[in-house]
């Protein structure tokens, strides 16, 4: 099933969940050409926001991605409080919810390096391109090398186009 990005973003933003779009979806928002299938978000770990996050996804059947079916998993506030990073399947598509990112920190750290972009009729916080590059570099995953190369080329192209 192709991810319903508009549905995922709408479910979170319309419920007032404080999230920052990171990962491949952020790269796409900045102009990257590489396709991504999952939606990665950095969420704020305040009790109020955790309540909103749990409520926002409740209707969309969140479940641990890759786990055998039938586990007694409930994506509620208590579960989110006990954990940090969650890789989920939902009825809207795959969603990764991270409490912090390597090379970036938590929500409060990254929001300083984010901008509000207008997408799907909503204003959504998206990590800035240089911060995204720093985070991907810091993660140090060989599979990211091509993506980082594209992001750095994108940054250079963007800056050159601004100078014209």
């Amino acid at each position, binding site marked *: *099933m*192709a*991810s*319903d*990005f*508009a549905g995922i973003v709408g479910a979170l933003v319309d419920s007032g969940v404080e999230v920052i779009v990171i990962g491949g*979806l952020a790269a*796409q*928002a*900045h*102009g*990257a*050409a590489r*396709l*991504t*299938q999952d939606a990665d978000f950095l969420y704020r770990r305040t009790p109020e926001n955790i309540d909103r996050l749990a409520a926002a996804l409740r209707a969309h059947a969140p479940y641990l991605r890759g786990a055998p079916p039938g586990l007694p998993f409930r994506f509620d506030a208590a579960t989110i409080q006990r954990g940090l990073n969650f890789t989920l399947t939902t009825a809207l598509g795959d969603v990764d919810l991270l409490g912090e990112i390597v090379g970036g920190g938590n929500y409060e750290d990254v929001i300083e390096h984010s901008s509000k*972009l*207008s*997408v*799907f009729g909503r204003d959504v916080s*998206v990590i800035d391109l*240089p911060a995204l*590059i*720093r985070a991907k*570099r810091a993660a140090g995953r060989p599979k990211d*090398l*091509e993506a*980082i*190369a*594209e992001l*750095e*080329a*994108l*940054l*250079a*192209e*963007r*800056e*050159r*186009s601004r100078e014209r």
Partner: protein
Amino acid sequence: MSQSPDDAAILRQFGLEPDPVIEAYKKDVDRTLLRQNLMRTPDERWKLLTAQLRLAEELRRAGAKARGE
């Protein structure tokens, strides 16, 4: 090395030191696609992504059907 000095200078403006391993990958980046995307709004980019994923899903489905799966 395919990278122009301008790329390195731009990276350094943002506190990013060019990495030789990443530079090796950079020569294969299709910059024409990036330039096209830069002319789009973020909303248009996400809508294009959604359309591309739907197309890929449709092609996967058609392939599976053709193989009798």
